[in-house]
């Protein structure tokens, strides 16, 4: 259970990015966070693991108050929070295996990690995860040799090998083509279900969000203006979140089944 209470962030420039956000995410729930650029979506996600330090309010993960932890305590708590990034944020000059293993750094001593002496159990888990995301045959490739979709799969494996209780996902598909976007979102939602993980995912693509998440939160100017099921998103609600526009085409229902059969083949092909 992830709880945000009265979470606020004011940047040094005086901008109020978050204005007292209250949000509660039970275990196993995948929440889509939508809203216009500058609404505070990234800030909200980064306040949870304190990559951005919130100015007011509290973040509580399974009864541990993240916002009051010391630096050392925060490092320990961050191990339970996986993060997936928009531009993948893999370390370009490290191999896939090293990138995945960087998810275990919080559990290792410095010299062991420096000399890449990973415990065999972690290596087994890395191979399992890489197989799950479809990349087990390329562990020794360097991260900068991969395509965007492949990089994001490595990013997912890195987040999951932390054995997290929650994953924070910042625009995972913003740099990907429409088909790869669906594959990545499907992979994320499947993995969250398999492992009973709660997750917050920032997403620009409303239709994509409706397809894969069970709950949608709309953020506008640092405040939550909508919280409900994907099918409750009406043109009126979207207008409230984003402003006036013709929304009928955006909410168009997409036939998911047809899409899956095409994708399975193309996953094989792209590998």
């Amino acid at each position, binding site marked *: 259970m992830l709880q945000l209470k009265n979470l606020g962030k004011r940047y040094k420039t005086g901008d109020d990015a978050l204005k007292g956000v209250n949000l509660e995410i039970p275990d196993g729930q995948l929440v889509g966070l939508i809203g216009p650029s500058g609404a505070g979506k990234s800030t909200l996600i980064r306040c949870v693991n304190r*990559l951005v330090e919130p100015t007011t309010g509290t973040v509580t993960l399974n009864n541990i108050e993240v916002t009051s932890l010391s630096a050392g305590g925060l490092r320990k708590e*961050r191990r339970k929070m996986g993060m997936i*990034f928009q*531009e993948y*944020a893999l*370390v370009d000059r490290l191999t896939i295996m090293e990138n995945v293993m960087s998810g275990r*750094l919080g559990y290792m001593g410095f010299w062991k990690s420096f000399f890449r002496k990973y415990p065999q159990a972690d290596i087994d888990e890395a191979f399992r995860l890489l197989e799950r995301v479809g990349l087990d045959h390329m562990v020794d490739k360097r991260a900068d040799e991969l395509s965007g979709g492949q990089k994001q799969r490595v990013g997912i494996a890195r987040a999951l090998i932390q054995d997290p209780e929650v994953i924070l996902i910042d625009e995972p598909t913003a740099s990907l083509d429409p088909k790869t976007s669906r594959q990545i979102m499907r992979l994320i939602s499947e993995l969250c279900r398999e492992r009973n993980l709660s997750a917050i995912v920032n997403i620009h693509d409303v239709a994509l969000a409706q397809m894969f998440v069970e709950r949608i939160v709309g953020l506008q100017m640092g405040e939550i203006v909508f919280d409900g099921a994907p099918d409750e998103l009406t043109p009126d609600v979207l207008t409230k979140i984003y402003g006036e526009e013709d929304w009928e085409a955006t909410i168009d229902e997409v036939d998911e089944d047809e899409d899956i059969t095409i994708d399975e083949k193309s996953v094989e092909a792209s590998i």
Partner: protein
Amino acid sequence: MPVTTKGDLKVWQRRDRAKQFKIWFAWLIGVAIFMFCWEIISDKTTWFFVFDAPRIAADIGGRAWPPRWSYLSELWKPMWDTINIATLGTLLAIIMGVPVAFLAATNTTPSKRFLRPLALLIIVSTRSINSLVWALLLVSIIGPGIFAGTLAIAIRSIGFVAKLLYEAIEETDINQIEAIQATGASKLQVIAYGIVPQIMPAFAGLSVFRWDINIRESTILGLVGAGGIGLYLSSSLNILAWPQVAVILIMILVAVVISEWVSSKVRLAII
């Protein structure tokens, strides 16, 4: 500003009239200063010596030719010393310069108020004094010989290594670093996994580049008694043994060409 209307036409020029005039005026002042200085230099030059120069140069060239090749047998040892001075000096500089770079970079320094200015002071002071001057000082402190030369090269190179490296550290991609931080890694692990891979190409490039410069600098250190081939150059010059000077100069030239070739090969291999 640079857009003017002539009738219906909108005419665009790069600069408006006032700016154009300012630039023209700046050029006028620059040329005037140059002419004035030229006149002073011209007045203080003994032109007889200048006109005589080609004859003297031809005379020295005539005495130096043919080079006394038999002298080579005495030169291998000091040349080897010279290469060792350069290589060991560069290694020492790297060992001392790398920590200074991490103290100086704004994103890795542990204290911006105290340690960073200190590191910058080390960089500026070691860089601003020529290695020949360092050698002069060190020869009088620890006596003549190879050790003084090695130290002179090392001290002169600390600033170079540290400055280029700390600039590389500051230019690293923050996303990759944040991704490592988000896993719960310690500060040292963030450096080892997030920063070091990113600065490796710059580090390797600047190391061989500095080694290449140091080969050149160490050839003259002998002039002040700090060991190496410069010692033989200065004694040959003192007894006007021009054919020996010719051999030494050719040898230095060959060594410099080889070192440049090696460093360009290494840089290509790494990037």
